């Protein structure tokens, strides 16, 4: 049973819903945005009923992503505060990538890598929002001087590329760490999984047992 009550609850239904809604919106915003970024990706406009509709929809996908992410931010901000142990974890991350976890510092509910990912995404989305408003030609661009519009175009493209890179990494980390996608889909994780990947959180959840 995926939802065996013996398993530990990692994400509540609303957290999971919020996550997957954000993921969907990030995909919509990302795929529509890529089509303007580089002619190679222009065929992606076919997913959104053509170039004009893609141009109309993309900024709204962006705004909806922001709103959905803002909920996630408010909810997970405290859990993602970087501690000394997290930086220590990050210093050992190369060993983990090489499949050697013997010397990894104990991770809490989120490890240093996940926390860093969280803050990098916050930074990218903040840049995307600010620059996106400046280059939103239909409603806002006329309010800004041309030099700023040009600068914002670069910022938007660069932070979007970084964001896509982060998302690709995030997806791969989920695939690589077996059962972690299940955790986000169904909410509960096996106790063994918790002890393996998030030992400090495991102890907290099981009241300092095993």
């Amino acid at each position, binding site marked *: 049973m995926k939802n065996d009550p013996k398993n530990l609850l990692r994400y509540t239904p609303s957290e999971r819903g919020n996550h997957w809604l954000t993921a969907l919106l990030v995909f919509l915003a990302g795929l529509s945005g890529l089509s303007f970024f580089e002619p190679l990706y222009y065929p992606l406009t076919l997913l959104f009923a053509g170039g004009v509709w893609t141009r109309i929809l993309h900024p709204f996908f962006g705004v909806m992503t922001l709103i959905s992410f803002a909920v996630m931010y408010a909810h997970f901000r405290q859990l993602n505060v970087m501690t000394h142990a997290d930086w220590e974890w990050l210093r050992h991350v190369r060993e983990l990538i090489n499949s050697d976890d013997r010397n990894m510092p104990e991770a809490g509910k989120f490890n240093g890598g996940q926390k860093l990912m969280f803050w990098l995404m916050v930074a990218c989305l903040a840049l995307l929002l600010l620059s996106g408003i400046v280059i939103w*030609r239909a409603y806002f*661009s006329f309010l800004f001087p041309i030099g700023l519009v040009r600068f914002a175009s670069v910022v938007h493209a660069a932070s979007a590329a970084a964001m896509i*890179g982060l998302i690709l990494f995030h997806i791969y980390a989920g*695939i690589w760490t077996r059962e972690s996608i299940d955790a986000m889909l169904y909410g509960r994780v096996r106790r063994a999984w918790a*002890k393996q990947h998030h030992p400090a959180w495991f102890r907290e959840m099981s009241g300092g047992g095993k």
Partner: protein
Amino acid sequence: MALQSLDVIRRSATSTSPPGQRQTQEVVKLIDISKCIGCKACQVACMEWNDTRDAIGINHGVLDNPPDLTENSWTVMRYAEVETNRGLEWLIRKDGCMHCAEPGCLKACPAPGAIVQYSNGIVDFQEKNCIGCGYCITGCPFNIPRLSKRDSKVYKCTLCSDRVAVGLEPACVKTCPTGAIVFGAKDDMLHHAEGRIVDLKSRGFADAGIYNPQGIGGTHVMYVLQYADKPEIYHSLPKNPSIGAMVGIWKDGAKPLASLLFGAGVIGAVLHYVTKGPNEVSEDIEKEFKDEKRP
């Protein structure tokens, strides 16, 4: 413009060759500001030929009417009152698309075929392919393209590409009563400009010269200026226009770099997965929790 052209040398957001079998002569529209009397016949001719009509606006204190280029007014006379060493002068500049040899609009445009450049030098918008993002406005060094509020497409001077294609001069040239606007082969126009500059110099305009800025590879609309050393006095004509570093980074730097990053990321992930394998729960921990069902 919907006519098929076989003389396209650049096409926006397209990495393969556009249909360019036919090579045509480079053309130039030369605007001699010293001969312009500001009658606006060119503005009228432009609207007549292109069948555009601007809304009736308001007088805003000077003769510029309409006060700015619009999606319907593809050329506008700009009147500048300037103090020069000859006293107060009225410098009247016919503003509009300069048809740059290296067009910033075309470089910035993300929609395949929404902007093309013909081998005769004309930069033409193909509104049927325009998606209305306004990136051309961001890329233009002269602030020319205008987004229509009616259809969200961008419009600007076509240099009457439809007339030029059948051997006619642009409508503004045809109508100019003083001969301030002339049109023809690039070499002829440069030669004509030289004659005008010699004449102006003999009349005391020591700094007379041609405006054909090289930062954008030259233009296919050129001016003869009485004060070529100070183009900015002609209603802010930029002295050294260029596409700009930001547009360059955006369009030349970021695009290939990011695609490379995505590709390297995906390949790296696959290589990592097949060499290192998945990150699973270790056998020791699994033994501790034997009672749990493994997935």
